[in-house]
């Protein structure tokens, strides 16, 4: 295979109330491309999805679930930091989870901005649309209006169970992130140290005082 010209790595957040299907969406999305070897979420920060976006571009997506911190919305900065986009998920069968959407969006925007100060791209997912009880979504125009008002780049009716619209939603988000990216590159900090397990290349520093 010819080496692609460009590779992008994006961190995406998946947020929303308890039980709206965040983990199922991640599993479904990652699962179908990469065998059934995907394991339980315990001990795992994020799931990785690789997209061959076009012949020149590979996009790697880290999908971050909100772990045990979700219960009271107390996510750490570690969770938000450097994310480039997010899905906010609600359950079409439970109106309360839709009411929480605006709160999640406000919360996200107050805690996370792109390096250029703009809010990150967020796609709204109306999950569990397979259940036929989507009273909420009967008015697509209303949803469009809602997304416009609250700064979502788009919305999708999804079903993790039936695999409806999840790829489409992701493509929509990635498209917006890619469109934003050119102005972001400049802000990457030089000289950052990332200590890692086993540092084979420990520089035997010529400046070390030991002779």
């Amino acid at each position: 295979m010819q080496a692609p010209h460009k590779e992008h790595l994006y961190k995406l957040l998946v947020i929303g109330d308890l039980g709206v299907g965040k983990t199922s969406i991640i599993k479904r999305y990652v699962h179908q491309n990469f065998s059934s070897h995907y394991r339980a979420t315990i001990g795992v920060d994020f799931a990785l999805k690789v997209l061959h976006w076009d012949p020149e571009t590979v996009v790697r997506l880290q999908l971050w679930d909100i772990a045990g911190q979700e219960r009271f919305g107390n996510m750490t900065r570690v969770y938000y930091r450097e994310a480039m986009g997010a899905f906010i998920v609600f359950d079409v069968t439970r109106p309360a989870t839709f009411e929480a959407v605006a709160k999640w969006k406000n919360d996200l925007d107050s805690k996370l901005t792109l390096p250029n100060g703009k809010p990150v791209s967020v796609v709204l997912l109306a999950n569990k649309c397979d259940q036929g009880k989507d009273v909420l979504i009967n008015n697509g125009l209303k949803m469009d209006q809602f997304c416009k008002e609250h700064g979502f780049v788009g919305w999708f009716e999804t079903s993790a169970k039936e695999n409806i619209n999840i790829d489409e939603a992701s493509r929509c988000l990635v498209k917006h992130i890619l469109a934003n990216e050119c102005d972001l590159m400049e802000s990457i900090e030089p000289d950052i140290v990332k200590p890692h397990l086993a540092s084979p290349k420990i520089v035997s520093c010529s400046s070390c005082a030991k002779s």
Partner: protein
Amino acid sequence: MADSLPSEFDVIVIGTGLPESIFAAACSRSGQRVLHVDSRSYYGGNWASFSFSGLLSWIKEYQENNDIVIESSIWKEQILENEEAIVLSRKNRTIQNVEVFCYASQNLHEDIEETGALQKNHASVTSANSTEAADPNCLSTEEVSLSPLNSEVTAYQTPNSDTEVAPEVNDAEVTGKKESHSDDKTSEEETSKNKSTAEDSTEQLKKNRIAYSQIIKEGRRFNIDLVSKLLYSRGLLIDLLIKSNVSRYAEFKNITRILSFREGRVEQVPCSRADVFNNRHLTVIEKRMLMKFLTFCMEYEEHPDEYKGEYKAYETITFSEFLKTQKLTPNLQYFVLHSIAMTSETTSSTIDGLKATKNFLHCLGRYGNTPFLFPLYGQGELPQCFCRMCAVFGGIYCLRHSIQCLVVDKESGKCKAVIDQFGQRINSKHFLVEDSYFSENTCSLVQYRQISRAVLITDRSVLKTNSEQQISILTVPGEEPETFAVRVIELCSSTMTCMKGTYLVHLTCTSFKTAREDLEPVVQKLFIPYTEMEIENEEVEKPRILWALYFNMRDSSKVSRNCYNDLPPNVYVCSGPDCGLGNDNAVKQAETLFQQICPNEDFCPPPPNPEDIVLDEESSQSEASESSAIPPNSETPKENTNIGNSEESCE
């Protein structure tokens, strides 16, 4: 929401400071069911870092010293006949003597609202925030979401006093020295308006004029630590971060300079071989002497026979006296004593001094030319990194959640549950309590030390060089025999702790008097207030202070567990931050406590790498190995000091 909290855990951890968070992560990692709570709305307790508005809220909280603690007694009904309660304190007594000074000009006609991401809400908020906000409670809901008190405020909080953002916060307590203040805002505003139209053009010409309003506006750029520490690049915390792979949540910068302050001048201390040889202030002979001495410090333990005689003789004297015998010029003695060993002139023994020097040298070169690292976004990130790890392994997090009391079984003498603010009883086997949560009854016999702290926002570095982005540590020895050395850490904007064009300066020492009394003499030596520079004077080299904060923090690190009254054996105690530079104390506490409850378990082994798990079948090997060491957003690894390779390569 609290009704959904489970009522059965293995470990309950109260407080989200660094030792508690490491402990919680270790327990969760080894399979314990962990509940981790903090009564505050943010992570970290006294280890937290704040945006500028967040810090103003914190200041307000302590200046008001509010006694509006509602003594609830719901818990009483819950205590059974064969049980006793240990009531926890609902008031934090660890912070005192908070004083704020603002020297930057406060042109109140400007829009002084912190810039947030919610652009669309701005219009509705601007006026409320800027001027006549005499009533601090008049904030609108939008404003709360605009002001990242810090990023941990719960999503659904209602606005209340501790999310106050307005700059008026410091009105009440600001003491003296300030030329313009908002006490009579209306007139102030009038005059500044008039002035500003007249002076607008000249204002524009003056470079580096930073007004208070800009600090407010750029408030999100600040991450101001309550505790000022660095990581020794071979210290216990770095080792733990690497071992547990929690390091993937954090990024660091090297401290770029070690400075010393001598005879009124700030100088760079040569500590590496390259520094020594490039130093223009040292003579060739001095360079040789210093290299010889540093080599000796590295090797004296490995070649005991060779050096034994030489150094044995000095075991009984202080390190500073020992240095005098080592053919070092006074200049070099000063460097070694204060900037490398960072020990006290009067009290440190030769052995301690040599050990400290050796440790310093040992840490050199691992990641850079100084022994120290600083976490991007501040020290306050570190507890959160461990909290994230705990949560990833199933730990449950509740901020703004107080525990009213511990429930002790009379017969066994063991603690068996806690009762939270809602009266819910939560059972557990083990309990870790950060000591500030204990009531005065529990702590009646405890003697505390204090830490004096100052935080300054300045407009330039204490030592100007061609690069603006320097991170420096400077030790200023105590003037009187009984006073302590002051540690000064200056952070530049690339550490993500302050806005562009400013520096964040942290001063720390063991308290002798109040923080301001202890630290102001050093502040005056190194800095001048911004206001004295109204007449532009390019000659003045001292950095100017835009804003300053002083406070004392309680240091409970030396308190023995036996000092607390009547603690059941399964209630463990950990301390708040200590005054030291490194973080070894926090790691040691967490590890010791973890070993007590999980004697045969590994302490924070690395978790599975998510990318390994996902990519274990179809994906190509090359992709797997490339990805794991690259942090998000950095497709250009050439720029990063990416020590360490992917895990695959080490196996």
